[in-house]
């Protein structure tokens, strides 16, 4: 059932996101081509104005994709689960957990797609101007060679591990960000009136609460006897540089996972026990 929820969620959000992504990629090609054309432009003419407009649209398009990814993530949760559509969604034979996970996974997909779109847009602009930028291919070859040497030095397994850890870290980060919004909306929409205003207030409230809590925890840890000595005596040389990076990344993932779990529990509880559909 989770797969089916994801499929329909992708369909529901894709009809908003895909046009933005396609338009911004089209604009990046247009921007690249106009940059190439500008190279041959000797004096100021109407083409300069057109060039300025295309570049503005290109940047605006990329910004729009980034903004829309956040808007879609928030709006799909609000409309699909807390609005009238909630009567349909919450009477499907699926659990509240599956609803939340479907939303989180699809949000991660769109954030990833947004990041890839931005990268691809830059690559497209560069590809349109390979000659203009006078790429030194021997330098590119040198950089690639150095990259290969670094990979061999660290070990392929370590590099694969880093990539996986980065992916998990990205997903955990997306979960934390989305769950902060979801939890705030679940709180706001559990009231009878002023749901949007209360959701916004809850969002700020949660953010302030967790920032304060983190500062307090760090201060408490620093004040604990033995912590400083433990950190001083921590010998990471046994695991090497590559291993140390793994430890840091895993600790960060653990932190994000705990943070996400702390936000997930009240969100789930509110949707299960305090659902207040309009």
């Amino acid at each position, binding site marked *: 059932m989770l797969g089916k929820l994801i499929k329909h969620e992708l*369909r529901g959000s894709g009809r908003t996101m895909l046009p933005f992504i396609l338009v911004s990629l089209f604009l990046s090609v247009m921007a690249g081509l106009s940059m190439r054309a500008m190279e041959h432009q000797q004096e100021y003419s109407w083409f300069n104005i057109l060039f300025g407009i295309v570049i503005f649209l290109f940047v605006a398009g990329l910004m729009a994709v980034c903004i829309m990814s956040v808007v879609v993530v928030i709006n799909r949760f609000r409309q699909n689960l807390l609005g009238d559509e909630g*009567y349909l969604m*919450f*009477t*499907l*034979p699926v659990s509240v957990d599956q609803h939340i996970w479907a939303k989180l996974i699809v949000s991660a997909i769109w954030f990833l797609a947004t990041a890839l779109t931005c990268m691809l847009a830059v690559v497209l602009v560069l590809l349109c101007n390979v000659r203009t930028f006078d790429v030194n291919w021997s330098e590119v070859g040198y950089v690639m060679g150095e990259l290969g040497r670094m990979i061999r030095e660290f070990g392929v397994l370590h590099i694969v591990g880093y990539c996986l850890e980065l992916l998990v870290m990205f997903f955990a980060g997306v979960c934390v960000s989305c769950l902060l919004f979801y939890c705030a909306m679940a709180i706001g929409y559990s009231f009878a009136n002023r749901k949007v205003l209360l959701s916004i207030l809850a969002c700020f409230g949660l953010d302030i609460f967790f920032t304060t809590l983190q500062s307090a925890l760090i201060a408490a840890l620093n004040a604990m006897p033995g912590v400083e000595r433990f950190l001083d005596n921590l010998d990471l040389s046994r695991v090497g540089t590559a291993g140390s990076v793994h430890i840091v990344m895993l600790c960060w993932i653990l932190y994000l996972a705990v943070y996400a779990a702390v936000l997930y529990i009240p969100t789930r509880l509110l949707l299960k026990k305090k659902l207040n*559909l309009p």
Partner: protein
Amino acid sequence: MTATFECRGLSKRFGATQALEGVNISIAPGRVVGLLGPNGSGKTTLIKLANGLLSPSEGEILICGSRPGPETKAVVSYLPDKPCMPQWMNAVQLMDFFQDFYADFDRQRAEEMLARLGLDQKQKLSQMSKGTKEKVQLIMVMSRKAKLYLLDEPIGGVDPATRDYILDTIIRNYDPEAVVLISTHLISDVEKVLDEVLFINQGKVTLQASVDDIRQQYGMSVDEYFREVFKC
């Protein structure tokens, strides 16, 4: 035999407001039941509780012997009192959606009903009139071979011709082994299709009786008896 729909000492409070109080109901399979009561009597709250959209404050509600959850939702077909289908979808996408989630969805039946309605299946819900949207929603709900149909105000706010279409669709398509619970205060329209009625007032069930018993015992129709009981 296990009751299809059962409430035991069911109560629901919203803050200081008591929406339902000590409700005890048992409905055997194969009955068409009218949940009748004035506005604000607790009909929608009871139906929401049966769908797991609300949690009881006290007591329990059982669907085929189980508390509301994913298992009961697989056998309950629910028509809310407002449009709830995604407005960007068309009829084909809606059928895909229902087919994906409900094993008991009969696509052929849905397509036949939509064809009878003369509807362009590629037309988005957002482009349809209010009445057509309600009909499409009803077609989706009644195209399931569910064990319990919970229909919340299915004929509220529609013209008499549409009322007839809706009631006809309900009666033609429900599974004879299923329970159909119709919540309404427009009794004269639904009376002809009911086997049994539940009167609900101020959160309490005041009567559970068969339509024939009411007619025999009080010598009046359910509509007339309702007006007598709930006279202001």
